[in-house]
């Protein structure tokens, strides 16, 4: 765990907020798995369990006017940037009050007022949007920063190269955050690239590249804060790679056992980002265990209410099918 002391200077409220958000993501995703298995959620459910420290550590470094782009595994980013659990869960179940009125589902949740430019069903789909968002900031003379979350799999798409190259020549305020969970569905990073770290590619664009333990929320926060400061100052984009692991399969229904060993999964579960952070909070006297237990209970209740809200919400009217195609 982070021992530099930098993070110990964070406001206590921020430290507690980070635990709360990580718990919200964990509990939300476990509830998603449950509602999916109960047949309440159509489509696909890509769970973020095990990767919570990245979205939370990164979004803790942002201002409200900063923006993010997300991925198919996007629930965590949305929650960390302030997304509403009830509206998220309703959207996942295809209900009318959901974030997108049931038109987008899990892979397209957006909240533009919160700077969430949407999850994305295309691997690498966020690169163009984030880069363009950075361009708007520049053209408007604002110093808002955009975080572009993407996976190790997306780093092999052509748009990765084209977007980071554009951002580098135009010095756009974008931080590209690779959540390297080691696998693009079944293909390991060792088989899909010939390099050790995705962040090495930063060199090709003449921008800073950083590697951080993605299961250490304080380290992620410190690193992303540094990257955001760089981008906000007008010094251009940064590529940050967060090493992590997805506990479950590619989606609910994929056992995730054909391409990785049980030992490997169990080894990573021992590095649970939430448990590590909980221990740090207690050991450093930030929170006591009873307060943490109360927080867990409160989050569980909130998620339960989100599920109930979604289950009790109506499906959209058929007449909605052709609305919102054009402005």
């Amino acid at each position, binding site marked *: 765990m982070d021992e530099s002391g930098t993070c110990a200077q964070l406001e206590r409220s921020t430290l507690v907020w980070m635990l709360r958000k990580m718990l919200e993501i964990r509990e939300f995703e476990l509830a998603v798995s449950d509602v999916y298995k109960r047949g309440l959620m159509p489509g696909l459910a890509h769970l973020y369990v095990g990767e919570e420290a990245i979205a939370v550590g990164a979004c803790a470094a942002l201002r409200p006017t900063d*923006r993010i*782009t997300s991925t198919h595994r996007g629930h965590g980013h949305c929650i960390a940037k302030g997304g509403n659990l009830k509206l998220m869960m309703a959207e996942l179940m295809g209900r009318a009050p*959901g*974030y*997108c*009125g*049931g*038109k*987008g589902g899990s892979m*397209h949740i*957006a*909240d*533009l007022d919160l700077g969430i*430019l*949407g999850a*994305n*069903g*295309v691997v690498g*789909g966020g*690169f*163009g*949007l*984030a*880069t*363009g*968002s*950075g*361009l*708007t*900031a*520049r*053209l*408007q003379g604002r110093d808002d920063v955009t975080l572009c979350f993407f996976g190790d799999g997306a780093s092999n798409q*052509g*748009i990765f*190269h*084209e*977007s980071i*190259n*554009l951002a580098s*020549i135009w010095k756009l305020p974008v931080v590209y955050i690779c959540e390297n969970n080691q696998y693009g569905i079944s293909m390991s990073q060792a088989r899909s690239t010939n390099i050790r770290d995705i962040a090495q590619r930063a060199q090709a664009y003449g921008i800073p590249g950083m590697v951080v333990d993605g299961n250490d929320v304080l380290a992620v926060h410190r690193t992303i804060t540094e990257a955001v400061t760089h981008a906000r100052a007008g010094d251009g984009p940064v590529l940050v790679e967060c090493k992590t692991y997805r506990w479950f399969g590619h989606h609910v229904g994929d056992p995730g056992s054909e391409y990785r060993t049980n030992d490997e999964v169990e080894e990573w579960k021992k590095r649970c980002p939430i448990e590590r952070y909980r221990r740090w909070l207690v050991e450093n006297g930030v929170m006591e265990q009873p307060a943490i237990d109360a927080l867990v209970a409160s989050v569980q209740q909130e998620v339960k209410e989100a599920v109930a809200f979604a289950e009790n919400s109506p499906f959209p009217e058929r007449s909605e099918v052709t*609305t*919102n*195609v*054009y*402005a």
Partner: protein
Amino acid sequence: MSTREITYGQAVREALAEEMRRDPTVFCMGEDVGIYGGSFKITKGLIDEFGPERVRDTPISEAGFVGAGVGAALTGSRPVVEVMFCDFMTIAMDQIVNQAAKLRYMFGGKARVPLTIRTTIGGGRSGAAQHSQSLHAWFAHVPGLKVVVPSTPYLVKGLLKASIRDDNPVIFCENKTLYNTRGPVPEDEYIVPLGRAWIHRPGRDLTIIATSSLVYKALDAATQLAEQGIEAEVVDPCTLYPLDVETLAGSVRKTHRCIIADEGVRRYGVTAELVSVIYENAFDDLDAPVARIGASENPMPFSPPLEAATIPQTPDIVRAAQEMGMPIRIPA
């Protein structure tokens, strides 16, 4: 309103300059659009007035800069992105089809994507198979996109201004063979709204629905047919989506005969859709089956005679009219 003659290319440039003056969120971006003035010299001089931030040169990176255009549009800018040839739009197809077209719908109506992509269609310059295509039908197939195919200097200027002001992604297909075509354009500002067909020539015997460069060939054909006593009405949809069904069908209800001409490949193309629209809306008024004329079913060849054989020509339209079994009237 005073009018002067300018070229189609000058009309595009005027529209860009006027919209950039009017709205600080409008900016241009694309390969060589800045210092070089664009490969077709359409943006020439704009960098002097608006600077390199708003007339932005990009690397050769269609997916990258079209994608950035989508993201900029989503966050409050009003980008006008130039893709040199529509053949290169294929490189950016994910950004156009999966992102730009769908963001608003996927997000439940909360997003606006006021993005204009200017690109060029049209053969006839020996550009061969990768610089001559007319792929406008591809985009008209995608809900969420608007598609504009302007034919004259007047229309290209008014329609581009409307496209830039539109809050949806618009694929604006300029015809590269028309850039030097001259025509009357008012000095004063005007807008041509999207979704209104334009009647270039009235007629009572036959409707020729023609797009882009085929408008000129249809007008030539109409002149030849008039000598044979056939008065053809030439109607230009101007926009493939939204489509002015009423004006197209209304003309056919009046003339009872219809030819549809478009430079895209015939198979599954614009003509196929427009034939259906006419049958769905004016079937009972037709005295003959609708004829359609499009490019032959091969990649665009390089050699001039082969290229000319691929692209629909004026005689194809005249022949189609003559084969409709119209009573020939002798001019008085």
